């Protein structure tokens, strides 16, 4: 249940208000972020303004309550007047009205939702428990403090990070991971992330690896990202975005798990020294948790099968094979 009535106390009849009397720079009630005005521009060009603008009177002209995008288009089209209603109420009531109007017409994107919640808490001083109870459901969000803090942390990020979140449709759990990093980290991280092709789970993996490496080594994420191995991959002109992503992940895994990487490399080196034919594959125990090797053979003909068996029977004579079995760790 809302604690306050959602509608303002007074609103006037429709009237034409000159645009030069409206303060287009006052964004008190705006939640806009990277608005795409193309469709709205076509609509207004063809049909004119269908819904009136909501304004509040101020000492020198008018303040926009709802209709920022429409006024922006009208201004761009050189229109001189806009059909409007003048309303008056407390700031929080007006903001609530603007939110309702936006949510019932166009909806808000992730960053706009974050801006709206940030304004409710920090600008209009609505207490967090009330925001959780009364406003999160408006945005179709679960009513808990973790959700609110996720959006508040997004609102506090820099423009570039917000753009990235919006363009890449970053999930809430990844927003939380991004939010745990510093402003300086974001400045280096966002261009780095943008240079790869990251789905939801890849992004989570990369962010987790970066966060854990930097915390373990007590260094910044930026410094990890600036490392020569990573930079070489990012700057490599011939690699596709997917190839860059895979290679960066491999480098980060090696940094995060150096001992495991050493074991893998040592195992692969010895395996290569065996010069096995393509039909034989050797695998170590998962995570080297135990000794033992798993051998997989693949063949199409009896001849291939016999040949593989001969190769296998000779393996026990090779030092590298015995070393693989002994697994004396580096």
């Amino acid at each position, binding site marked *: 249940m809302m604690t306050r009535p959602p509608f303002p106390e007074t609103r006037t009849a429709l009237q034409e208000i000159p645009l030069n009397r409206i303060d287009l720079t006052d964004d008190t009630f705006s939640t806009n972020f990277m608005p795409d005005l193309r469709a709205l521009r076509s609509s207004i060009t063809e049909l004119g303004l269908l819904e009136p603008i909501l304004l509040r009177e101020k000492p020198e002209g008018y303040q926009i309550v709802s209709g920022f995008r429409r006024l922006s288009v009208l201004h761009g089209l050189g229109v001189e007047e806009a059909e409007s209603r003048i309303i008056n109420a407390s700031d929080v009531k007006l903001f609530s009205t603007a939110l309702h109007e936006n949510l019932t017409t166009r909806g808000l994107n992730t960053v706009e939702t974050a801006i709206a919640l940030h304004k409710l808490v920090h600008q209009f001083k609505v207490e967090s428990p009330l925001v959780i109870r009364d406003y999160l459901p408006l945005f179709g969000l679960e009513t*808990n*403090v973790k959700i609110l803090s996720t959006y508040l942390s997004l609102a506090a990020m820099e423009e570039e990070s917000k753009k990235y979140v919006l363009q890449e449709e970053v999930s809430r759990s990844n927003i939380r991971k991004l939010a*745990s990093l510093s402003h300086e980290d974001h400045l280096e991280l966002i261009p780095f992330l943008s240079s790869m092709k990251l789905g939801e789970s890849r992004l989570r993996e990369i962010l987790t690896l970066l966060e*854990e490496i930097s*915390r*373990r080594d007590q260094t910044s994420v930026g410094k990890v990202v600036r490392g020569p191995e990573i930079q070489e991959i990012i700057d490599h002109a011939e690699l596709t975005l997917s190839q860059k992503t895979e290679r960066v992940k491999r480098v980060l895994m090696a940094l995060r*798990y*150096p*001992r*495991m990487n050493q*074991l893998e490399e040592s195992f692969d080196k010895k395996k290569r020294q065996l010069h096995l034919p393509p039909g034989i594959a050797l695998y170590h125990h*998962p*995570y*080297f*948790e*135990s*000794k033992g090797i798993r051998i997989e053979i693949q063949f199409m003909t009896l001849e291939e099968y016999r040949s593989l068996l001969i190769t296998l029977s000779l393996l026990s004579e090779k030092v590298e094979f015995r070393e693989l079995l002994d697994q004396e*760790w580096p």
Partner: protein
Amino acid sequence: MVENYDNRSRPFQIDQIFLDVASEKDWMAQALLKGLPSTPVVSVRDKRLLIKEFLQHPDSLGSGKRNILMTRFLGKRLKPCPGTSQHICCGYHVINALTNCPMDCAYCVLQIYLNNPLLTFYSNLDDLLQEIDAFLSAIPGSLVRLGTGELSDSLALDSVFPLSRVLVPFFAEKKNAVLELKTKSVEIDHLLSMDHRGRTIVSWSLNPRRMIEEEEVRTAPLENRIEAARKVQEKGYLLGFHFDPIIHHRGWEKGYEEAIHSLFEKVDPGRIAWISLGGFRYPPPLKITSGERFPNTRIFLGELFPGRDGKFRYLMPIRVEMYRKILGWLHDVDPALFVYLCMESKEVWERVLGWSPRNTAHLNQMFEERMRRFL
């Protein structure tokens, strides 16, 4: 963020006591009210509703540790230690006379294990004693180890839930069992005057100073634990020590070597029943829960991978290296110390000690032989 109450006289702070009406007349309930005379008491008829209410709290784990539920427990409270699958365990038995712990360690599995966040004491202690009696009567020739340290730190709470005042004399009369009181507290003064007859082992979990400060909130500092161990050893108690969880961190070798050095400056190795070594391990959900509650914890930054039982453990070479070194430092002090590995594979036992118990029963038998030397 988790708060620290180290500067208080008790290692915990209690906001309220919720007293189940079914427990009101039990003497343990009376002892609790006497131990916390100024703490508000709320009478409870349906504890399920109370637990549900606490579970809805944004920090249910934190708030649960500040509130006591005194109730009765009607099921079995003596159980074989669950151990872990596909690893060698020690055949221990756990006494669950209470659940949850006032301390708050970042690595504590109770954070995801308990479905009741309150500090919960079970007032029908006589039923528990009967259960233990029945169990011991059925195995007269054995020598079993029972302990209270799985779901709580009972010694830390003894001032308000005087469990050891009951259990120490109870076990003093038993011929085929020993009691282990495992703790990270220094609440031992009341033990000093008790007639334990060598049937109670007081044991401490140990970690380097830095790990205790960073990862074990509201626990006693290392020096205080060692001093408490010295005091109880002086009164004839056998001691146990658990380097568990061993945390691989920058400077771990120095940290553990110093801890061992500090320990044996004060404690006689000849009266130590056992020492366990166990690398940090965790079920996957713990990383999320602990990470949210302890944003600065560094315990998950090691090279940890899923093992045969699904729990994450350090890469085997890392575990083996840690165990070998710690074992070496312990054996430098006294090669006769009885050191075992907690929840490890035969392969790790062999790599560390050069041999392995055949199975859990074999290790249990070794414990029996060890105990008979002291009794």
